[in-house]
C-alpha cells in the first residue's frame, strides 16, 4: 500500500502542476470548455484517488473545489478572476496538505476552512454536502447474525443480458450464503421458433437458509433491483419457541406467495380426495407445476429445520417426570426449614465455628432453592400460542375478524401455576371474543379497523408475573352492569359504588352480561369462577375498561406456589404468616380504638379511612390482648384492610405446607409453615378474610 500511496502522491503533484497551468490558461479564455473539463477532472482524480489511498483530508477538501467546477461545467457558475484566484489558493492548499503528509511544512487548517467557506459562497444555492467517508462503499461486510430462512423470487427483466448481467452468477452468490434450493420457472419460455435467445424468459424461486442478514441478501441483487422483480421474505424464525414452529400446508404456501387465491385453495380443498392438492391446482390451471414444486421445496426445508431444532433441543435436555420434581421441591422445603433451625441454634450458642457453618449452609440452601424452583419454571409462550387456534376458530364461528397478538412469551412461571392458569385464560379470551370484540360492520361504523385485536402479554413484576389480556372491543358499560347487578339482586339501588367497584361486579357469583347464553361463553360459568381460580393461586385479578375502547384484565400471579415471602406475626401464643407482598405498612393501634368494642372497626391512617379486622376475634383466640397492639395494613383486591395482631416479628421465608385433608374446609387459613424452632405458624388467607 505504501508504494501505492507514493504513486498517488507523485500523480497528485503532477496533477497540481497541470492544474496550475490549466487555471492560468483558463483565466485567458474563461469559456474554454475543454479547459474547464481538465480542471474538473484533475480535482476529481485527486479526490477519488485520495479517498482510495487514505488521504481523507485531501479528498474532503478537494471535494469542495470539485463541486464548484462541476457547476462551472454545467454553466451554473461563470469563470471569474475571483474564482481563478480562489482555485489557485485551493490548489496551493492541496499541495500543502500533500507536503504535510510527507511530514514537510506546516498545514494551515484555518486557511483550508476559510477557502471552503469562500468557495461555498460561489455556489448558486448550497445543497447539503456529501462527505466522503473512508470505507463507505456498497459492500460493507456485515457481521453474521442468527440463522434465518428467506423465500426469494427473482424475476429478471427480459433484457437483463443486454447489460452483461449473468443471473446464474447471482444464484451462485446466494448458494454461497447458506443452504439454498433453487426452482426454475420455465413455463414462460416461448416455442423454439419464436424464442429470442438474447432474452431471459426464466425466473426463479429460491429458499435460502443463511446466517447473513436481509440486507446482505438484498445486496446480491444490487445491480439488478431496479429492473427486475425481486421479493425477499423471511419465512421461518429459527429463534422461535419450538412449540410455536409450524409447517405450513402446501396450499397455504402457495396462497402466501400469491401464486393462487384463497378461493382457488378452498375450491381445490373441497375436491381434494383422492388426488393431491398440487395436482388439482395444476390440472385446473390455477398455477404451474413449477410453483407447486417450488412450494414443496420450501415446505420440505421448513420441515427439516423444525425437526433439526427439535432434535437440538432434545439433545440438550432431559425429561423428568413432574412428580420427581415435586418431590425435589418438597425436600428443598424441608431443608430450608431445617436450615432455619440450624441458624437459630447457632446464633443462640454463639460458637464462631458453628455460626460460620450455619451461614454457609444458609447460602447453599438458598442457591439450591432458587435452582430447584427454576427447574419448575416454564415459558408461558407455549400456552399463549395454544390460544391462537382458539381465537381463530371461535372468531370464524361468530363471523368476527380477530387477531391474537402476544408479547413476553419468554416470561417464566411455575409449571403448576401455568397449568392452573389455562382454564381462566380460556374463559377470559372467550369472553373477549364473544362480548368484547364487535362484528366487523359495527367496528367499521365506530371508526375502528374491521379486525379486532386481542393482546396477551406477560411480564415480571417483583415476585409476581403480570398477565394481561386486552382487547380493543366495545368495553364494559358501567350503567348496564349496574342495572343488571341490581336486577339480579347482587347490589341494591342505594349501594354507592365507584366505577372500579362497578367493573368488579362481573366477578360476583351468578353474574353474566350476555343477554342470551351463547355457545362461546356464558355456559353458566361466570367470571367468579375465574376469580376463584386466581385466588387459589394466591394471585389477584384487576379489570380496566373504557366504553368503546376496550377492556383489559390483568392477572397478578406469584412466581411460585411453594415458597413465599411472609411477615411473621403473633397473636396470643400463636404464630401467623401474612403474605409480605400485600403488606403496605405497619402502624400501632391507637388506645382509644383498642378499647372500643364496636361493630364498625375503622381506622384513620393519615387521613384515609381503613377498615380493620382483629385476628384475635377472627380466630377466636381467648387470651388478653397486650397493652399495645399492631395493625398490619394489607392491600388486596384494590382495597386496604388492617389486620390487628399482637406483635410483628419480621420477614420470614415461608415454605408452604398444606394443612391436610382433615382441615380442607377451614376458612381463613391457606396453609401452614414450620419455623426455625419447630413451631408451626399458620398462613392467613387475607383475600378470604377481606371478602367475608
Amino acid at each position, binding site marked *: 500500500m505504501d508504494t*501505492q500511496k507514493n*504513486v*498517488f502522491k*507523485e*500523480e497528485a503533484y503532477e496533477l497540481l502542476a497541470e492544474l496550475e497551468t490549466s487555471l492560468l490558461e483558463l483565466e485567458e479564455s474563461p469559456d474554454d470548455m475543454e479547459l474547464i*473539463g*481538465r480542471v*474538473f*477532472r484533475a480535482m*476529481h*482524480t485527486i*479526490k*477519488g*484517488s485520495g*479517498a*482510495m*489511498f487514505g488521504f481523507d483530508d485531501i*479528498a474532503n477538501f478537494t471535494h469542495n473545489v470539485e463541486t464548484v467546477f462541476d457547476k462551472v461545467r454545467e454553466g451554473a457558475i461563470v469563470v471569474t478572476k475571483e474564482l481563478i484566484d480562489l482555485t489557485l489558493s485551493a490548489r496551493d492548499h492541496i499541495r500543502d496538505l500533500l507536503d504535510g503528509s510527507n511530514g514537510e511544512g506546516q498545514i494551515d487548517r484555518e486557511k483550508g476552512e476559510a477557502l471552503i467557506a469562500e468557495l461555498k459562497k460561489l455556489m448558486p444555492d448550497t445543497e447539503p454536502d*456529501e462527505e*466522503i467517508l*473512508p*470505507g*463507505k*462503499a*456498497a*459492500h460493507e461486510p456485515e457481521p453474521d447474525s442468527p440463522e434465518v430462512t428467506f423465500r426469494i423470487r427473482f424475476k429478471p427483466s427480459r433484457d437483463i*443480458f*443486454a*447489460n*452483461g*448481467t*449473468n443471473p*446464474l*452468477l*447471482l444464484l451462485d*452468490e446466494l448458494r454461497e450464503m447458506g443452504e439454498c434450493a433453487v426452482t426454475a420457472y420455465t413455463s414462460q419460455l416461448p416455442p423454439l421458433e419464436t424464442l429470442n435467445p*438474447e432474452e431471459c424468459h426464466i425466473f426463479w424461486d429460491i429458499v435460502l437458509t443463511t446466517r447473513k442478514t436481509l440486507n446482505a441478501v438484498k445486496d*446480491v441483487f*444490487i*445491480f439488478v433491483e*431496479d429492473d427486475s422483480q425481486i421479493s425477499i421474505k423471511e419465512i421461518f424464525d429459527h429463534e422461535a419457541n419450538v412449540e410455536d414452529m409450524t409447517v405450513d400446508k402446501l396450499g397455504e404456501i402457495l396462497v402466501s406467495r400469491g401464486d393462487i387465491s384463497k378461493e382457488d385453495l378452498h375450491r381445490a380443498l373441497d375436491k381434494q380426495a383422492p388426488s393431491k392438492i398440487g395436482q388439482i391446482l395444476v390440472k385446473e390451471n390455477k398455477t404451474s407445476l413449477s410453483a407447486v414444486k417450488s412450494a414443496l421445496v420450501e415446505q420440505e426445508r421448513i420441515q427439516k429445520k423444525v425437526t433439526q431444532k427439535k432434535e437440538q433441543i432434545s439433545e440438550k435436555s432431559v425429561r423428568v417426570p413432574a412428580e420427581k420434581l415435586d418431590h425435589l421441591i418438597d425436600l428443598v422445603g424441608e431443608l430450608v426449614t431445617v436450615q432455619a433451625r440450624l441458624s437459630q441454634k447457632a446464633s443462640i450458642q454463639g460458637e464462631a465455628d458453628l455460626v460460620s457453618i450455619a451461614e454457609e449452609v444458609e447460602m447453599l440452601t438458598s442457591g439450591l432453592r432458587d435452582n430447584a424452583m427454576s427447574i419448575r419454571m416454564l415459558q408461558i409462550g407455549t400456552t399463549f400460542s395454544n390460544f391462537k387456534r382458539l381465537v381463530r376458530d371461535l372468531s370464524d364461528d361468530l363471523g368476527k375478524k380477530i387477531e391474537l397478538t402476544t408479547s413476553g412469551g419468554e416470561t417464566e412461571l411455575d409449571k403448576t401455576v401455568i397449568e392452573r392458569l389455562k382454564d381462566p385464560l380460556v374463559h377470559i379470551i372467550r369472553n373477549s371474543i364473544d362480548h368484547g370484540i364487535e362484528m366487523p360492520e359495527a367496528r367499521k361504523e365506530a371508526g375502528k379497523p374491521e379486525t379486532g385485536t386481542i393482546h396477551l402479554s406477560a411480564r415480571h413484576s417483583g415476585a409476581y408475573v403480570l398477565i394481561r389480556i386486552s382487547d380493543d372491543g366495545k368495553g364494559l358499560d358501567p350503567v348496564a352492569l349496574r342495572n343488571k347487578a341490581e336486577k339480579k339482586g347482587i347490589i341494591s339501588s342505594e349501594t354507592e359504588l365507584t366505577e372500579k367497584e362497578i367493573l368488579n361486579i362481573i366477578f360476583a357469583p351468578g353474574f353474566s352480561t350476555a343477554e342470551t347464553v351463547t355457545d362461546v361463553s356464558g355456559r353458566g360459568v361466570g367470571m367468579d369462577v375465574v376469580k376463584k381460580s386466581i385466588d387459589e393461586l394466591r394471585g389477584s385479578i384487576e379489570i380496566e375498561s373504557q366504553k368503546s375502547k376496550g377492556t383489559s384484565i390483568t392477572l397478578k400471579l406469584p412466581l411460585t406456589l411453594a415458597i413465599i415471602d411472609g411477615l411473621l406475626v403473633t397473636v396470643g401464643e400463636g404464630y401467623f404468616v401474612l403474605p409480605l407482598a400485600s403488606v403496605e405498612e405497619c402502624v400501632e393501634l391507637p388506645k382509644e380504638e383498642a378499647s372500643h368494642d364496636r361493630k364498625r372497626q375503622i381506622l384513620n391512617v393519615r387521613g384515609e379511612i381503613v377498615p380493620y379486622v382483629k385476628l384475635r376475634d377472627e380466630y377466636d383466640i381467648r387470651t388478653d390482648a397486650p397493652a399495645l397492639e399492631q395493625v398490619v395494613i394489607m392491600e388486596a383486591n384494590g382495597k386496604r384492610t388492617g389486620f390487628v395482631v399482637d406483635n410483628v416479628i419480621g420477614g420470614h421465608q415461608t415454605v408452604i405446607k398444606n394443612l391436610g385433608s382433615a382441615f380442607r374446609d377451614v376458612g381463613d387459613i391457606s396453609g401452614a409453615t414450620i419455623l426455625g424452632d419447630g413451631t408451626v405458624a399458620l398462613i392467613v388467607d387475607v383475600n378470604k378474610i377481606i371478602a367475608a
Partner: protein
Amino acid sequence: MGKLILTADDSASMRQMVSFTLKGAGYDVLEAVDGKDGLEKAKAKDVDMVITDLNMPHMDGIQMIREIRALPKYKFIPIILLTTESQDEKKMQGKAAGATGWIVKPFKPEQLLAVIKKVLK
C-alpha cells in the same frame, strides 16, 4: 489462460491499484489511460470484462461503455463503472449506457473482487 480485464482510468494510482488487485487474484489486465484509449484497446483485443472510471479526458466512461457495448463481440460482457458519486443519477446513466454494475469510490480491494465475482463467470 486467465480472464482478461480492461481497466480504464486517467489516474495512474487508481490504475495501479486496480491492476495490482486484479493480477493478485489471477486475472490478466489491460490498462487504458482514458475512454478513447480504452475503446481502441477493447477493439484491438478480446477482453472478458471492463472496469472503467467515469470522468476521463478525451472520452468519458459513459460514452466508452456505450461504444463498447455497441460492438457485437461485447454485447454480453460485464462492464463495471467506478464512481465517486453515490447518487443514483450516475449509476442510472451508467446502466442506461450498458454498464452491468458499479463500485463507489473509495473501495477496498476485496470489494472490487467481490463485485467481479458477481458479474464475471
